[in-house]
């Protein structure tokens, strides 16, 4: 992938998030630095409560930062107004863990997809063209638009909803896609389908993909570089082979040791 690593896409310096004040203070993310390159696939791995999701929310601009800066394509990110925020979200999009809570239950599927087309400046397109775009997007994720039109999100299964989420991304073509536990609510078989689609999508529109996950198998399988997070800091980082197969930190070693394997003996005596 070396040729694809043209330049830094997203960069953070001294990024910190503190919740609460005084004695109740919790440092969720503690001065993390990182540089994500264009077209790279990154995994941020950690246990529950390690600060992964807080970091993701900061990157998306959903919550403010306590300290530190985020640079997008070399320039400091500016999301001070709603308009600028929307502009930023054209470049960075997310897929969340729970597809059931990702949709507005009052809006039909059509409007979900139409919104994406409008966001890409397609508001003035004739309806026939929009329909074509929507059908193409649904086709990309193996859904049939004819079956979805005029339906509400709750009429779909979890797997279908998650795929529709990917269809949205297909229409939006963002520079960065942040996937926060995209497969933890669906079974192993659909997981393969979703991952396959995300990979295809990446090749299609050449975006940076950031996986936030506790599934080490998944992180190893998909990513170029892996960041291991513990208590708000990155304890280890490097290429997937380095970090997962030859971990240096005790925390990483323990984490990897705890995953059930099929070719090696699973050592139960360590807990």
């Amino acid at each position, binding site marked *: 992938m070396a040729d694809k690593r043209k330049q830094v896409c997203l960069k953070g310096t001294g990024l910190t998030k503190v919740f609460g004040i005084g004695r109740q203070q919790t440092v969720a993310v503690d001065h993390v630095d990182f540089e994500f390159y264009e077209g790279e696939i990154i995994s941020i791995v950690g*246990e529950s409560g390690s600060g992964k999701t807080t970091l993701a929310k900061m990157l998306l601009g959903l919550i403010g930062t306590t300290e530190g800066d985020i640079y997008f394509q070399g320039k400091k990110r500016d999301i001070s107004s709603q308009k600028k925020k929307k502009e930023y979200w054209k470049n960075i999009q997310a897929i969340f863990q729970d597809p059931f809570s990702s949709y507005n239950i009052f809006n039909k599927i059509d409007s979900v997809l139409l919104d994406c087309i409008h966001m890409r400046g397609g508001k003035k397109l004739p309806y026939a063209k929009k329909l074509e775009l929507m059908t193409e997007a649904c086709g990309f994720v193996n859904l049939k638009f004819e079956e979805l039109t005029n339906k509400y999100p709750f009429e779909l299964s979890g797997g279908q909803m998650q795929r529709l989420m990917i269809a949205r991304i297909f229409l939006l073509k963002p520079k960065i896609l942040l996937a926060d536990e995209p497969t933890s609510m669906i079974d*192993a078989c*659909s997981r393969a389908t979703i991952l396959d689609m995300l990979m295809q999508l990446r090749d299609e529109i050449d975006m940076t993909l950031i996986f936030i996950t506790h599934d080490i*198998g998944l*992180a190893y399988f998909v990513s170029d570089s892996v960041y291991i997070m513990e208590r708000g800091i990155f304890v280890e980082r490097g290429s997937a082979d380095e970090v997962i197969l030859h971990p240096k930190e005790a925390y990483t070693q323990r984490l990897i040791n705890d995953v059930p*394997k099929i070719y090696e003996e699973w050592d139960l005596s360590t807990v």
Partner: protein
Amino acid sequence: MSNVMLEVKDLTTKYITRFGEDIYAVDHVSLKVEDGKSLGIAGESGCGKSTLALSLMGYYFPPLHYTGGEITIDGRNITGMNPDDVRKSVLGTEIAYIPQSAMNALNPTRKIIHFIEDVFEAHNPLATKKEIYDIAKGFFETVGLPAEVLQKYPVELSGGMKQRTVIAISVILSPTVLIADEPSSALDVTSQKMVIKMLRSLMNNGYVKSMIFITHELPLLYNVTDDIMVMYAGQIVEKASAKEAVFDPLHPYSRGLMGSIIVPEEGLRDVRLTAIPGVPPNLKNPPAGCRFAERCLYVRPLCTTHPVRLREIAGGRTYRCILSEEELREAYKNG
């Protein structure tokens, strides 16, 4: 055959929906679990794994209804018993069931010891509080839980601890069969490992004579169980030893399922994931032939019209396909 702890013959159960439709979620399932053995059940969401677990207890309440088949636990036939008798004399002592979100079942206003007192009240009303506490303390210590847990409220325990506590409570009467339905899927890897370690030690120490373990996480299933049964659309499609099922699956569906395994081990990065295209059939009106035919890569004309029986081959393996073992292997070799 006294060492067969649980035997199920042609068990069929159905859901009756609001609209009066019958959905056969468990369709002619037969299985056998021997003393000291564990059986894993794998399959996609919605294939009937959890319904099978509920059906095995013989404790039916609407919308789930019993339609046919036989369940024998340690030589005792429990089919057709009325639900009250099942609750009194089967649940807890013969079959213990750990549902998917077991840890949410703890009433937050009561201490852990109260739940154990409740269990004894129902099954052994003569025991005094002191006796119960001593038994509980001894038992908790043998399964690796600190005795202080007994005096705590559920909110004071972490998720993994709660899950292990619920398991300990449900097996305190040494059930013949333990049914664990995704007991660790809401936990992180370290807590998951502790739960598995506990289940193993329960089996090894004889507190639980046999176990049925349900999960869609295949590497976990491989590490926990002796045999694996793969379900698809309410039917068993393959039953084999854990090793055979994972490394040498025969049925095209099991093969697809095993192709979706991801583990962080060397060399597995280059393996291509095999996603099975399509979706499972709607069980409201299941296909006449093989239920997997629509998604199968090796489908033959006969598949869609003729119902397929389970075939038994050497080594006690069974699978549901019209192709013979040789034909299947040949097909896989050619891609």
